């Protein structure tokens, strides 16, 4: 057990898996010699050699394509996309090819590739260093999609993804790489002393498909993922309402039991995500919850999300859900 931030936890996951399985390779732009622009792979090329941890040309489509080829030929490639916003040149390879190859070939070929990528706002990244594209992958059968929020689940989910025989997209909240983020840009804590920063140095997994109950309560269910888990936590505190806070962790497949149990208990639900509202994954959660738990609901499922606009630079704190906005939504949900 050691105290780690998310950068270190990701590094540790990669380290464990490169050690454990010689079929694991890790590559991406600036991910080899330099150790990644966020330092997540620092030291790994030195330790494992440049045939296992290496830089690639600046081409996300090419990265995904070689990952496909390696995957169907017996390796477990782990590819870094430098920013989640830059995954789109690889979109065709991911949604039309990697996601479908097992099915299309009658199970003759499959592709256990992991894409890990820093996502989300909060670092003044503007339009193209801030997006949370999770829902653009959740609509694609054949893919699994997870979104980490803490050092503990960042490591455990990444290892689970690498060991999974299906392709997995792992989103990491870059805003939280070095500390949880409670929605106040002027108060920037580190992961020091945070319970979820206690991370085993050796191999473990966080099961794909399982949510984490971050707070327990009984009046309202708040569902969040990524950096928004921490913001929602601050909001719940601010609201004074007793809430279950569900850190979804895994979007496809999502944790039906955890969600249903909580909604049946509270009858109320607020969903929080950074991505734009329309067709965000909150839409799927809200649609599913009202489908499955209609008779338990005492108020509409409320969504607190990024606005339906591009992600701004200077005004990003007005764009992302803030504790105040979330708290207000919790109150509104309680009042209906």
């Amino acid at each position, binding site marked *: 057990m050691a105290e780690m931030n998310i950068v270190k936890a990701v590094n540790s996951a990669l380290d464990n898996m490169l050690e454990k399985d010689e079929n694991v390779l890790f590559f991406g732009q600036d991910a080899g010699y330099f150790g990644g622009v966020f330092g997540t792979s620092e030291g790994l090329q030195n330790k494992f050699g440049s045939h296992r941890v290496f830089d690639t040309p600046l081409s996300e489509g090419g990265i995904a394509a070689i990952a496909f*080829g390696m995957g169907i*030929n017996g390796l477990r490639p782990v590819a870094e996309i430098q920013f989640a916003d830059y995954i789109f040149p690889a979109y065709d*390879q991911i949604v039309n090819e990697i996601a479908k190859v097992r099915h299309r*070939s009658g199970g003759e070929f499959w592709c256990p590739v992991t894409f890990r990528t820093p996502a989300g706002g909060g670092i003044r990244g503007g339009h193209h260093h801030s997006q949370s594209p999770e829902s653009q992958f959740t609509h694609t059968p054949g893919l699994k999609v997870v979104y980490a929020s803490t050092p503990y689940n960042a490591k455990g989910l990444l290892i689970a993804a690498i060991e999974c025989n299906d392709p997995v997209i792992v989103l990491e909240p870059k805003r939280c790489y070095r500390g949880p983020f409670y929605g106040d840009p002027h108060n920037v804590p580190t992961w020091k002393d945070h319970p979820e920063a206690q991370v085993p140095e050796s191999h473990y997994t966080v099961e794909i498909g399982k949510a984490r109950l971050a707070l327990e309560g009984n009046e309202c269910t708040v569902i969040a993922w990524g950096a928004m888990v921490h913001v929602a936590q601050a909001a719940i505190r601010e609201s004074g309402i007793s809430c279950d806070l569900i850190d979804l962790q895994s979007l496809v497949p999502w944790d039906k039991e955890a969600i249903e149990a909580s909604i049946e208990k509270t009858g109320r639900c607020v969903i929080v995500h950074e991505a734009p509202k329309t067709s965000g994954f909150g839409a799927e959660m809200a649609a599913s919850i009202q489908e499955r738990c209609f008779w338990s609901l005492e108020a509409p499922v409320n969504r607190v999300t990024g606005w339906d606009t591009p992600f701004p630079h200077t005004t990003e704190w007005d764009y992302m859900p803030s504790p105040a906005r979330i708290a207000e939504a919790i109150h509104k949900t309680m009042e209906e």
Partner: protein
Amino acid sequence: MAAKKKRVATIQVPTAPARPGDKPKFAAWTHQPGDLSRPDPLTCTAADTTDHAHGLVRVLDDDAKASGPWNPDLSPDELRTGLEHMVRMRIFDDRMMKMQRTGKLSFYMRSLGEECVAVAQTMALETQDWIFPTYRQPAAQFVRGRDMVSMICHCIGNEKDNILGRQMPVHYSYRTGRYISVSSPVATQFSQAVGVAMASQYKGLDECCITWIGDGASAEGDYHYALNFASVFKPPVILNIVNNQWAISTHANLASGSSNFAARGLSYDVPSIRVDGNDFLALYSVTKWARERAASGAGATHIEVLTYRAGAHSSSDDPSKYRPKDEDEVWPGGDPIERLKAHLISIGKWSEEQQNELEEGIDSEVMAAYKEAVKFGDLANGPYPSSDSIFTEVYEDIPWHLQEQWDEMKRLRGE
């Protein structure tokens, strides 16, 4: 702000050399066997292949005589095997096309006029090498020994389709023969093949991966990714552009502003060769050369296979709507089957009678296979793979939401 200006044309759009009603236009071939040296595959640089990329490697001349440094000196048996597979492909295609017209298949794509590509190139490889085809190299499966019945079962989408009716016909997958699942989006396999080869390279195995892309599809980003990654990482991959001069209705002059596809490889520092794609011997030999490079760790080879799509793009289009009807007859590259047959006859190892016998034999073989296959159903009449196949192999295991949906489907089926 900007002044109006006289311009001759506004947007310049190349027109096809010939459209219906026009006389087909082909530049006569000046290239002859013996024009081009055969460099040492292990030490050869991209620059050493400049002439090969701009010229045309041939072994069979217009009189079907073999000569020159690229002559692979194949045994008559090997040549006959090649001929046999090409004929098999053609007869198979004819049968499937007929069946498509009767609704037994939803769709079909022939290799007509390009049968040599998959046959010669696959024969030049080792059995452990990976084949990453487009829809125009199904003949590789014959070379790798695939049972024809199972191929037909796929095409007619019946119960025994090994891909369970999930993709359209001609989207074969044949793992035993290391023939990787075909997928409809063009070009994607080209860059993926580089990854397949990198894995072989990483594992230190004596394997390479061969792949193909169409002249049209080479305009996709995947073409660039493939060449560039291959150039940087030097994996054992053989990257072929099949320039059959058409992409559906679009002539190759819209695929590239340059009429030469081979030379592109040079600018990536990948040795590149242009080869007569209807010349079995030349194509075999160039591929063998590329395979030697791959095996030695010298890296990728880029090959433009010059041929002509003699048939329609697919069962869905009528080429007389967009190109002269007689283009295929005028095209200087001839027919790959006729050329190899003529060569075998000219060296005294084959005869018209043997050819007739071969064709009749294969005709019966295809008919027998067809009859066997339709026993398991066809697209017009079923039985198809069970609709359960919709839910399996989406993931390794069935996640709960798929299980729920599957259960719902079963309930709707009355189970």
